[in-house]
């Protein structure tokens, strides 16, 4: 069962990621990214991270992707034009990516002592997670909330148009 679910959703993940690269319209890429993120949520659940699976769906597939699609629609982004980039990107970039993937795969395949995951085995409950989060890591958590506040203020300041500023000051 675990194997079937893993292959199904790993396949969805890879298909979504490849589709993200192949689509030329940003909205299609955004929707493929939603597929990738939702499949990743299922994989998190298979690895026993129930809270993260929920957070992945709500934060990534929900909030962040809504932001993305909103910006795509707001800016009325059309098809992208295919210029294959600079020559240096083609000549150095793709061999570098292939080398990176080969290196990562080699390291992973030679790693000893990695276990395996079975269904419904040691699930980290939200209870355990929040116990650590709010006892040992309370300060980083609070710092993160300040970071998000600053990010929201920065986003508003950056996205505000100059016209709006002028009409507001009048």
């Amino acid at each position: 069962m675990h194997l079937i679910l893993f292959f199904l959703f790993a396949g969805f993940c890879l298909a979504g990621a490849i589709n993200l690269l192949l689509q030329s319209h940003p909205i299609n890429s955004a929707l493929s990214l939603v597929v990738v993120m939702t499949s990743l949520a299922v994989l998190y659940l298979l690895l026993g991270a129930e809270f993260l699976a929920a957070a992945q769906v709500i934060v990534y597939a929900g909030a962040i992707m809504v932001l993305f699609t909103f910006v795509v629609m707001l800016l009325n982004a059309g098809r992208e034009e295919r210029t294959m980039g600079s020559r240096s990107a083609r000549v150095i970039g793709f061999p570098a990516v292939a080398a990176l993937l080969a290196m990562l795969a080699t390291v992973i395949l030679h790693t000893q002592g990695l276990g395996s995951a079975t269904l419904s085995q040691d699930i980290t409950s939200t209870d355990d997670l929040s116990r650590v989060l709010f006892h040992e890591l309370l300060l980083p958590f609070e710092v993160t909330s300040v970071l998000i506040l600053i990010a929201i203020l920065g986003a508003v300041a950056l996205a505000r148009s100059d016209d709006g500023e002028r009409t507001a000051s009048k």
Partner: protein
Amino acid sequence: MILPQDVPLTWYLLLSAALFSLGVVGFLIKRNLITVFMSIELMLNAVNLSFVTFAHQWHAVKGQIFVFFVMMVAAAEAAVGLAIIIAVFRARSTLAVDRIDLMKL
């Protein structure tokens, strides 16, 4: 039907590496600013999958909490990044990364 009941964690790590590489490829070949930004999100997600896998391997709750923090930082990054994209679009009226070349030599 007899199937192995467990999936080696190596496969999860390989999936994570493949997703990361696809993100890098997207970063290189996409010519739309928003799609380039989506590729970065894809890479962040791939790394999150590694974190969760290793948290499962070592039975470490802190690995999952790290993923939680990465999600929060990614949310902040998405908000600021998209605001920057809107500002760039307002200044240059284009989203093609080839035309946003003010700082190019």
